[in-house]
């Protein structure tokens, strides 16, 4: 799920950036620092959308670096248990398959793949129904349901299932 939230961060800026463009420098450094990162609490920071305010800088003893508390708005993406996501398959093996929904990695173990789909090894390992009508392989697009998340301080990993109504392949690259 996406959220638009306000986060705060203490930015350390080298004295060489001080001057007329201090604010711009601060913002571009902020974007570079936070966009694409993941915190277990808020999820993946997708984009900074605005600056709420920049507090007074504090000069660090000895280094000359200045720390600015920056409040910024950003879009974050955090997966939840029970959420339905559409993801692209990145790897298939006999244990199941891995897929990505944006920055989130999801593993679907083989017992959460419908029973009528069997693993086929080879150059392009895949899961296929007995009649061959449905195939899951690398780059397939699947709709899956998150059934568990592992949230670490800097990482979120999900496991999902396609063993439910309306889940499974939504676009098979082989047939396009």
């Amino acid at each position, binding site marked *: 799920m996406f959220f638009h939230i306000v986060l705060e961060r203490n930015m350390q800026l080298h004295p060489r950036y001080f001057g007329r463009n201090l604010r711009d420098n601060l913002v571009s450094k902020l974007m570079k620092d936070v966009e694409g990162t993941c915190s277990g609490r808020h999820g993946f920071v997708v984009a900074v959308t605005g600056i709420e305010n920049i507090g007074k800088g504090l000069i660090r003893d000895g280094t000359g670096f200045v720390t600015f508390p920056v409040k910024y708005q950003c879009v974050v993406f955090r997966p939840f248990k029970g959420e339905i996501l559409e993801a692209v398959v990145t*790897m298939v*093996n*006999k*244990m*199941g398959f*891995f897929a990505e929904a944006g920055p989130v*990695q999801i*593993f679907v*173990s*083989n*017992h*959460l793949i419908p029973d009528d789909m069997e693993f086929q*090894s080879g150059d392009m*390992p895949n899961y296929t129904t007995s009649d061959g009508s449905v195939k899951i392989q690398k780059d397939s697009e699947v709709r899956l349901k998150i*059934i*568990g*998340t*592992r949230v670490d301080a800097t990482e979120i*990993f999900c*496991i999902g*299932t396609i*063993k*439910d109504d309306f889940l499974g392949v939504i676009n098979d690259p082989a047939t396009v």
Partner: protein
Amino acid sequence: MIEPYNKLVKLAARAFYDDLTSKGDNQLKTGRSDNRGIAVVVLDALTRRQWVREEDLAKDLKLHTKQLRRTLRFFEEEKIITRDHRRETAKGAKIYSAAVAATADGHQAAKEGEEKVKLHTHSYCCLDYAQIYDVIRYRLHRMKHKLKDELENKNTLQEYICPNCGKRYNALDALRLVSFEDEDFHCESCDGKLEVEIDKIAAQDGGDGDDNARRRRREKLKDMLQKMEAQLKPLMDQLSRVKDLPVPEFGNLQAWEARASAAVRAAGGDINAGDSKMSQLGYNGVPLPYRGDTKVVVDFNNTEGEGEGFKSETDSTTLKVLPPWMITSGMNLTKEQRGEVKEETKLDGTSTSTATQDTDDKKSTIAHAHNKNIQDEYIKAYYAALLKQQHEMEEATKNQLSNALVAANPSSNTSNRQVGNKSKREEDDDGTEWEEAPIAGNGNEGYKVGDLNVEAEKVPADDEDDDVDWEEG
């Protein structure tokens, strides 16, 4: 038609809402405040009614209005009933309270001067059968689904174990276990190939305490599933019985009310005789002037009936005397009655739809403009009542199928009685419209086509007056 649905409601009430309390769960339940079972009583009462004013219902059930409202609000959230709240004139309230001869909550002010334009908000409620059917099915589906999911470990973590060092992993570790040399998961400590733990419960019977707990839980789930199948079987049977039956629908409050009052008018001037509920409906929310006006309509109705034949006379009396098919269904008679009316119109509408396609098209365009036009509703309702009379006259106890047949070959009728046939067609138009709920506007067409211009034009005029009255009052 409605009886199977009522049974469904009663079964569902006992299955799902039996232990419902309207108070918070943390509250201590003494004998007096224990109001479990209220939900069942309320639902049962609603199966014997159509649209009902909530104050009346509370009075009938000897419940406090607040308590009833809480229950009703719950059912509204459960999508089992539809409610309507409306500000009405004191007049309407006065008529009603006079009928019940009781002074209750907000009605006292209304009892004084008739000319008061004070408004009271009244709430009405009605079972929503179509939705109830879906709600119950969805509920059963979810129950089964949940139990089965748990039983099949559908949403549990796949576990992996290292045969070398015995280290355990689960699917959440998958990312770390992937190796790029082969398609297996590898142990982080010893790089051994991990094995999938298959059905641990079945494999080791006398495992550790955790496993025992899991097994017990599994047994319990199985047990629950079985019990559910067995205990809810009557409900499921009833669902399948109801499946192919047309859903009884009363429409929104206004449409229903219009129909109800039209039915009362059609039954003759003597509204108080016969079914008391029906007379209530007639009074309900219908401002006073209506009654004066109805007399015109009643006359027209009677003469019309006479023109057709003496049978209509007997018919109007049968309504009061309660014909056998009414008596059998006991308390539900009004519902039955109207349910059948609706059925008839529906069937007729479909059978003659080809003949009236042209007008239908025109109608649909008009319909958008005149949406929820009360005047038209009343005309429709009136024609519906007329139709009902005619049908009853012709085949009092026959079912809708024969009615449909009659309507389907109007050629046989044209020679015999022209008036009846024409008016029937008009109602057929109405029938098709009603299925699509509050689309109005066909009434105008209807009376233009018919022979009944003079009288029919009077009706909308009256309605206009009433409309104004209603708005300001």
